[in-house]
């Protein structure tokens, strides 16, 4: 009994407080089709579009579809997770274009990006909007 409870405690490492998943990066041989379908289903609009990738949404909630080799299946490449305070992991964190401090690690088939939003995003991540 004692052993079990000790094991339970150990497995629950104290990580940063999670706010939620706020971004997904997919790769697809046909990024236009995947982005269009996503847009249809969720209503998120393109932030920018290039030959290499399409970004839908904004820093707080985005989906990026990157072009992959012809014939390859669609796959999830990155999961972006927002945290309240990046805290003890901060040393490994770097400023990024979304306006956060973030670090990333590979988790199986995809890369996990953990981010604390701390400042305004760079111009490429700013959405043109009507004045309030």
């Amino acid at each position, binding site marked *: 009994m004692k052993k079990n409870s000790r094991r339970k405690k150990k497995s629950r490492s104290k990580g940063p407080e999670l706010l*939620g998943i706020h971004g997904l990066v997919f790769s697809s041989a046909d990024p236009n089709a995947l982005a269009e379908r996503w847009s249809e289903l969720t209503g998120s609009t393109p932030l920018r579009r290039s030959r290499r990738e399409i970004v839908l949404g904004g820093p707080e909630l985005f989906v990026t579809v990157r072009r992959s080799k012809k014939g390859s299946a669609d796959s999830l490449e990155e999961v972006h997770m*927002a945290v309240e305070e990046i805290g003890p992991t901060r040393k490994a964190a770097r400023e990024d274009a979304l306006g956060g401090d973030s670090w990333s690690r590979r988790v199986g088939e995809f890369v996990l990006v953990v981010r604390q939003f*701390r400042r305004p995003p760079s111009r490429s991540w700013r959405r043109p*909007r*009507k004045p*309030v």
Partner: protein
Amino acid sequence: MTSAVEAAPRAPQGAPFGAVLLDLDGCLIDSNDAHARAWSAALARFGRRVPAARLRGEIGKGGSEILRDLVTPAEHHLLAPAMGSLATELFLKAFPRVRPVPGAAAAVGAMRRAGIAIVLASSADREVVERAIARLRIEPSLLGFTSADDVKKAKPFHDVFALAIQRFRLAARRPVAVGDTPYDIAAAHQIGVPCLALRSGGFPERTLARADGVFDDLGDLWRNGRGLFAA
């Protein structure tokens, strides 16, 4: 100008008051316009164009509440702290140009000398409150302060006032809130504390209608409303 006697013909319930929960912006420093400009500039950096004039009526609320109707729920959930930090940073840059409300610091000193306990209870960040106290040189007259950093929900929620009453043990001294916005009035009334409103913050008279008395500024309150206090 309307005199205090016209504005508050009857003494509010709870008078005479022995303690004051005093708001900062618009009461001690003429900073509401500077806050509106700082928020407008901060939001612009996040791609949101909101004129300072549109934000002016929101000043007095905590940052999270200011943003509630201006950004999407996702932005609010994830970006509000970063937006708030930037707004504070921009406000502090403009702080040297913010002027004290004439006579307000002197009134605080006079109240203290008369034996009234005064706690600054503001929705602004701790750094702003500390800078203002230092600038006005009112620290010896204050029992202490509470700021947005001390509570989860700032005004118009009652937390800042409730914490001030609890932390400085003011309940038995019949506290009254003194503020310049409808959010001060709402916050105080939530916990049954009367609120005296000041016009010095520039809020329209109709927005202060629920106050238990309206005065031009803190100096006017002390000159014409002295009878409301247990001095």
